[in-house]
């Protein structure tokens, strides 16, 4: 999220599209309700189904699964045609003024530079035109025919209301209402927030779905503002923290790149990934990339990472190709991956095309599963319908502890890192994941000291965490290393207060530069965090010395208790002294875009930051949130993480085009009405023989979640109260479809796709209505996906039906739109 949960209450219009927040983030929905009740905010819900969120909203418009770009593209067109654009914001804070190379073009659904054989674009065709200093050329009038603003207008003028409604199945009257209400936030004193979740991302064009939201939010001037932003409502308590820590093939902690095979030296790596800008107005924050990289390598290998050995850069394995989740299971299925560690994840239920993923597990030599309950994945070898004697995988199932049985932090969707404590004793032999990893590292260090392939990175790995006799590390020392400390110089051994202090000469270490400032020296503290007592005041040991420290993640000082500390007119809810938020405790990112070039807020009624010329003895300073850099107003562009310094209406780095363009999902009931290009041209087709034909599978299907269960269900399907509330998987369908299939609520149906089949009871509901798509009647059904064959509550997994295909940029699977057939079935037991 660019913003945070409480900030939703600052919005004038709340758009919920691609999320069912009231069902899946119910407590956050309190803040939306407060916005309605306290200042009459308008809530919009756009979804294929009339959800709990819809029942909470003022206006609803339905759209068929997989048509977000058509839907939002029409809203962008509406804003441009009706001049509902914050021109000053767009001119100064986005790349609307940039001139694009003459080679750029768009025709018949394809952008310039497409290579059909590689299913990839030559992105050089989309480059900015540069001046003699290498700075992108701009036309501040935004009238140049090749400037981004004009290209944007041209691209989206095809998305007229009739076409959009024909593609999406939206009703024109409802659609126009949504466009009118949402684009009303173009005026500087009104703001709209856009909330989305997996309904947006889990498509073959998921990244471009989000791009379409971003473009609209930029035109309306809603990013950086209180009550604005583009907000991904994340579904796991620490999926933000785990992403920051880079448990993903393509990154290292802090969003550094995982090195690729051709990048053989540290110098080559830093040259390749450190962006350059010749624009003096661009802060180009990633120019600090070398400092963050070297500090990470120092945190991993300590004294063994020296200038002479490239700070141990060659200890990192070099990757080739795409190694994302779907690729991993394809490689496992093909027998290339022999061993798998699985920490608290349940791919037998949560992965697409579950039959294939379950079969892939059987190709492993060994599986180590770590969990608090016996997961479906850990017992794949005795699932219904298989003969265990035919499965030769060795399986270890390690008992882990629950969240209240250990100490550490989790990062919520608003990037708040919140500390929690060990309250209860874990049952039996269960130990923390930290202890399990430590045991493994200890054993491997001992083994590789005796020899083995490339042993140094393991043997020399630092693991200095005051590990106790049960192999439990002191988690505060881990947190302190993640923050970082000086490894040399006058401050050696002391915690670093900010990533601006990190160095590329080996004198600092930091496990994740973004977390610099989360765990600091007591003398670097200020305000309430040193004035008020609390468990955030800590001591840690390092090299025999005792450090007086502040664990900022453990701070619990609410702003409502000290309203006197908040400048009059500042937006509500920042809670700067509650927990800690990356980066540098900034609660709303890109907040320099919330003020004009003079540093005065677009919306003075609830400012995020504001330039106050009286501060610092008349030198002037910012007040409010932590600003995106302390430079004086108008001296730096506001989007400091971009080399351009500006937000990108036109994005030159994505795999599938600089603008979002509507393509149908891989499986779709109709031909693309906007171009002859049926699917996203840049996706990888893994299984051409597993794509369902619309004649055989005419019904659109989607998957989603219910409040009472969580993800792949291993925690909630073993929790008695929740099982009692929501015991069984079900298939939701409209009365029309139910009638045509001869079924009623409670009957059993069989849902089939090209990949597999599912049996479940039917729930007949008007929450689904048929769509008229291109003049044709199309039905859609929906299935919650939490169930599996193991646990207290069992049932068929919706992912038995979903395809092994992913987004062109992220490879997130297309769980949300596929084709199926439905037929009445007799009750049968779960088969697989």
């Amino acid at each position, binding site marked *: 999220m660019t913003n945070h949960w409480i900030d939703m209450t600052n919005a004038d219009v709340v758009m919920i599209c691609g999320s069912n927040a009231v069902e899946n983030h119910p407590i956050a929905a309190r803040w939306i309700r407060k916005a309605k009740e306290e200042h009459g905010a308008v809530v919009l819900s756009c979804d294929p189904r009339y959800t709990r969120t819809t029942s909470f909203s003022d206006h609803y418009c339905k759209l068929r699964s997989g048509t977000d770009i058509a839907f939002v593209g029409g809203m962008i067109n509406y804003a441009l045609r009706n001049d509902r654009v914050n021109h000053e914001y767009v001119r100064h804070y986005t790349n609307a003024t940039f001139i694009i190379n003459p080679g750029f073009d768009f025709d018949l659904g394809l952008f310039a530079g497409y290579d059909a054989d590689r299913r990839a674009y030559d992105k050089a065709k989309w480059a900015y035109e540069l001046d003699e200093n290498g700075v992108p050329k701009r036309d501040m009038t935004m009238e140049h025919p090749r400037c981004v603003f004009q290209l944007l207008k041209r691209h989206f003028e095809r998305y007229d209301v009739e076409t959009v409604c024909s593609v999406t199945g939206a009703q024109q009257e409802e659609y126009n209402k949504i466009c009118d209400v949402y684009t009303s936030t173009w005026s500087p004193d009104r703001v709209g927030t856009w909330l989305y979740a997996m309904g947006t991302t889990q498509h073959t064009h998921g990244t471009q779905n989000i791009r379409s939201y971003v473009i609209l939010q930029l035109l309306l001037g809603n990013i950086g503002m209180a009550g604005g932003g583009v907000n991904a409502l994340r579904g796991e308590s620490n999926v933000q923290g785990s992403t920051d820590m880079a*448990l993903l*093939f393509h990154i290292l902690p802090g969003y550094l790149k995982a090195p690729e095979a051709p990048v053989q030296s540290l110098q080559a790596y830093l040259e390749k990934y450190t962006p350059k800008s010749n624009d003096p107005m661009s802060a180009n924050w990633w120019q600090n990339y070398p400092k963050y990289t070297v500090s990470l390598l120092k945190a991993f290998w300590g004294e063994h990472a020296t200038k002479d050995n490239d700070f141990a850069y060659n200890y990192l394995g070099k990757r080739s190709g795409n190694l994302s*989740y779907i690729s991993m299971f394809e490689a496992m299925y093909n027998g290339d991956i022999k061993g798998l*560690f699985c920490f608290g994840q349940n791919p037998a239920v949560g992965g697409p095309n579950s039959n294939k993923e379950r079969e892939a597990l059987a190709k492993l030599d060994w599986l180590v599963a770590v969990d608090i309950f016996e997961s479906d994945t850990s017992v794949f070898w005795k699932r219904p319908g298989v003969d265990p004697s035919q499965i030769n995988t060795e399986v270890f199932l390690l008992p882990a502890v629950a969240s209240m049985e250990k100490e550490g932090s989790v990062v919520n969707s608003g990037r708040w890192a919140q500390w929690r404590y060990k309250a209860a004793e874990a*049952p039996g032999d269960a130990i923390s994941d930290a202890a399990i990893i430590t045991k493994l590292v200890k054993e*491997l260090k001992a*083994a*590789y000291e005796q020899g083995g392939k490339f042993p140094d990175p393991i043997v020399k790995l630092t693991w200095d965490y005051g590990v106790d006799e049960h192999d439990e590390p002191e988690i505060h020392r881990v947190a302190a290393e993640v923050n970082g400390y000086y490894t040399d110089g006058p401050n050696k051994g002391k915690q670093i207060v900010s990533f601006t202090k990190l160095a590329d000469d080996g004198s600092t270490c930091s496990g994740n530069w973004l977390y610099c400032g989360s765990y600091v020296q007591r003398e670097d503290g200020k305000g309430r965090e040193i004035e008020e007592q609390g468990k955030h005041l800590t001591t840690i040991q390092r090299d025999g010395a005792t450090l007086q420290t502040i664990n900022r993640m453990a701070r619990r000082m609410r702003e409502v208790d000290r309203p006197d500390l908040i400048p009059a007119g500042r937006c509500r809810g920042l809670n700067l002294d509650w927990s800690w938020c990356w980066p540098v405790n900034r609660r709303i990112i890109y907040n320099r875009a919330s003020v004009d070039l003079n540093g005065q807020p677009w919306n003075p009624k609830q400012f995020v930051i504001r330039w106050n010329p009286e501060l610092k003895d008349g030198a002037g300073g910012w007040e409010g949130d932590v600003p995106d850099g302390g430079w004086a107003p108008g001296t730096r562009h506001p989007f400091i993480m971009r080399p351009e310094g500006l937000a990108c209406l036109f994005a030159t780095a994505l795999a599938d085009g600089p603008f979002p363009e509507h393509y149908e999902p891989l499986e779709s009931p109709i031909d693309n009405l906007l171009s002859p290009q049926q699917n996203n041209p840049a996706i990888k087709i893994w299984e051409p023989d597993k794509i369902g034909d619309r004649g055989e599978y005419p019904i659109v299907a989607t998957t989603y979640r219910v409040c*009472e269960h969580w993800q792949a269900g291993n925690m909630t399907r073993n929790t008695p109260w929740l099982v009692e509330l929501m015991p069984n998987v079900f298939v939701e369908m409209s009365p029309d479809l139910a009638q045509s299939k001869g079924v009623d609520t409670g009957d059993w149906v069989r849902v089939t796709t090209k990949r597999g089949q599912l049996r479940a009871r039917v729930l007949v509901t008007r929450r689904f209505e048929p769509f008229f798509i291109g003049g044709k009647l199309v039905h859609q059904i929906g299935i919650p996906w939490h169930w599996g064959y193991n646990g207290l509550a069992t049932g068929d997994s919706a992912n038995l039906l979903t395809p092994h295909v992913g987004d062109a940029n992220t490879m997130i699977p297309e769980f949300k739109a596929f084709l199926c057939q439905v037929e009445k079935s007799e009750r049968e037991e779960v088969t697989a």
Partner: protein
Amino acid sequence: MQLTRRAFLKSTGAAGTGALFGFLGLDLRPSVAYAARARPSRLTTHTTICPYCGVGCGAIVQVDDDGRIWNMEGDPDHPINEGSLCSKGASLHQLHDNARRLQKVRYRKPGADRWEELSWDQAIKMIAERFKKTRDETWMESENGHTVNRTNGVACLGGASLDTEECYLLVKAMRACGLVWIEHQARI
């Protein structure tokens, strides 16, 4: 701290409910056992964060001196949830107080149809042996003339349910071992 009203009702009410609904065939042993726990003389309160969705609601946990949970409820001082919880959050104590929790290391031999139990020492030794064998057998030193030093044969999955510090330890360990197949819930 005294036993809270809610924990008191739970501990006394469960036995009565058992007598009432026993004929329905419900398994009442857990509630009876719960009710039979000696009432503690004091409870200690800790704060925690809900492990489910990404909202990050606060909860309080009240435990006796043996580390057993007697009550969990929304943290009224937490600025996001201000004491409220959803159905999942309201059931949090059942993650701890649950007969289905794994208590021992389990091991399944190739072709076997059942689990065996192992000690931690046995299990970690066996896992490390298998890991080292697979890693070293699938080790790739170079590819197309580039030094790559990685294992193509071992993968690591998961992390969104771990604490941030644990995620850091996991990525540090796995990258040091030369893994490149590293993924988790964020991708799906």
